[in-house]
């Protein structure tokens, strides 16, 4: 198992350097003069311009610039936001838990509902329920989630008034960030009703963000389950006289989970992309909204290293999924 992890870890390093190369190149593709862009003003004084070029290391050859960039990263220096003058890393850290909270809630929603729907659809193949699940999941898969979010807001917030329109918690509550997770912090604060309010804020964004993963997971679970139920070992399990529940869940689902897990992992990347849209719609103060606002404000250090951080996050999550995949599938684990 350890060598399996080590092997996967080895694959991670070149990918990481590749991503730094990408973010490095990205920022240099900005049309126009880099100093003017960085300073956010036109016609910079020539002396200051030269000074800035020197300071930013932009007069060095490209490879040296890249090495500088890597050097900075190695020291944990991700630069400063042009807007707030705060370090990119500390901004990221304050906003990141909000995104994680949202993403976890979405995955929980998509994973639990998707698995159940997929398994039941597979067991009742060809039934009305099966057709319904497949139809809805196809629609979910094709859903423009930014519109879906607006639709839900219109219905549940504007018309029914059940859920708030935006944010993580009502401004009435003064919650001290301890863990950064609003659900936990609101409980810790001891303020009455804070937790429920946080939950009400979370529910719509989580549904919106979870919609596409839900569709994908339900579809994948169904097809994996159908495949597995045809396998010889399921027949063996039934010949042992095991209960249908045990046959389906212990012998069937366990094996069907292997491809589902892969899809699950692939969805995490899509989830972060979806978070950009979801957070924008619901004014959810996470890294997605941060990134879009920074782009709007031409805050390039944030854009550059924010993208780097998100990419690293995706790589890391995929790595974890890979490990989980190994755990779930003995055949992979024992490869060479």
């Amino acid at each position, binding site marked *: 198992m350890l060598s399996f992890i080590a092997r996967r870890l080895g694959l991670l390093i070149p990918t990481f350097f590749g991503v730094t190369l990408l973010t490095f190149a990205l920022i240099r593709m900005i049309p126009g003069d880099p100093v003017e862009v960085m300073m956010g003003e036109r016609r910079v004084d020539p002396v200051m311009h030269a000074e800035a070029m020197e300071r930013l290391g932009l007069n060095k050859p490209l490879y040296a610039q890249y090495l500088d960039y890597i050097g900075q990263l190695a020291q944990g220096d991700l630069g400063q936001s042009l807007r707030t003058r705060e370090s990119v890393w500390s901004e990221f850290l304050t906003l990141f838990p909000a995104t994680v909270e949202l993403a976890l809630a979405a995955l929980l929603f998509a994973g639990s509902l998707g698995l159940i729907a997929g398994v039941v659809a597979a067991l009742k193949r060809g039934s009305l329920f099966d057709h319904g699940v497949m139809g809805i999941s196809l629609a979910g898969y094709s859903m423009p989630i930014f519109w879906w979010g607006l639709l839900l807001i219109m219905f549940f917030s504007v018309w029914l008034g059940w859920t708030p329109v935006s944010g993580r918690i009502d401004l009435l509550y003064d919650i001290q960030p301890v863990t950064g997770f609003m659900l936990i912090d609101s409980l810790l604060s001891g303020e009455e009703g804070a937790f429920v309010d946080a939950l009400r804020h979370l529910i719509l964004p989580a549904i919106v963000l979870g919609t596409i993963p839900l569709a994908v997971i339900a579809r994948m679970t169904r097809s994996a389950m159908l495949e597995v139920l045809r*396998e*010889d*070992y399921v*027949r*063996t*399990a*039934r*010949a*042992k*006289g*095991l*209960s*249908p529940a045990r046959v389906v869940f212990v*012998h069937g689902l*366990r*094996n069907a989970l*292997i491809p589902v897990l892969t899809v699950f992992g692939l969805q995490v990347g899509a989830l972060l992309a979806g978070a950009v849209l979801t957070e924008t719609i619901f004014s959810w103060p996470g890294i997605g909204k941060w990134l879009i606002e920074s782009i709007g404000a031409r805050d390039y250090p944030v854009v550059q290293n924010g993208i780097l951080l998100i990419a690293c996050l995706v790589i890391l999550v995929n790595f974890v999924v890979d490990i989980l995949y190994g755990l*779930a*599938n*003995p*055949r992979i684990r*024992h490869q060479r």
Partner: protein
Amino acid sequence: MKLLDIKNLSVRFGDANAVPVVDGLDLSVDKGEVLAIVGESGSGKSVTMLALMGLIDPPGVVSADNLQFDGTDMLRLKGRQRRRIVGKDLAMIFQDPMTALNPSYTVGFQIEEVLRQHLQLSAKAARRRALQLLERVEIPAAESRLDAYPHQLSGGMSQRVAIAMAIAAEPKLLIADEPTTALDVTIQAQIMELLLDLQREQDMGLVLITHDLAVVAETAQRVCVMYAGQAVEVGVVPGLFDAPAHPYTEALLKAIPEHSLGARRLATLPGIVPGRFDRPHGCLLAPRCPYAQSNCQAQRPTLDPQVRGAVRCFYPLNQEVA
């Protein structure tokens, strides 16, 4: 009382008009008896046994006048009652051991599962018993194999594990569905020997589904020959081998290479098994039968007693009393 007594078993896939895969089959097995079922692929051998185990899913429909195992009519049992018998008193081994074991669980888990389900053993006791079972089926280094996954085992090993799983709760009847077909020739004999050892040791009934007549000659006491879903001849060994009564049995025997020693070509039966759309009106073998008469085309024969056993033919062979 017979251990297994099947009367007029039919299995169809689809509605009542569908051509039956098993068609009015009668079969019985005594305690401690080895019965071989032989026939071509698709003749309904496996489906018969799957029907007994209750493993036929819709659209498959099973019907029978009697499907009695150990005094209970299996057809009238529902879910939980059936599962108390299946896997315990009635166990089955399948053809391809490489796919019959669950790839996600260890060998030990899959054996212990049976013990815990049917004998209510504790985890510890189940593991001890599983180890004994692995040793009994002659798996070397059994202790470490308990924690092995199926993909780490060879085909022969996997089949031994499958056998250990099947005999775990000491069944009264073991069904082995072509247990050696998927294995190397060198392993086949070992597995057969193991099965017969266990059968004698535990005094189990054994139904051996196979198309290897050489194996049948060495192991079985009685043989049922199936063709297109029907039993065409039931007889004892070695009588059936010396004097087959049904033309189809004769053709099967002639197709064994040993019988054709010296001949230039192996004897074959021309034609193929009738399919869904060309099922003959009369005797199902008539289109392929070298002895067929005109009434063979028109009427369907029934399985009738003859000198040694029973045969489904108007003109049985070898009827002179020896």
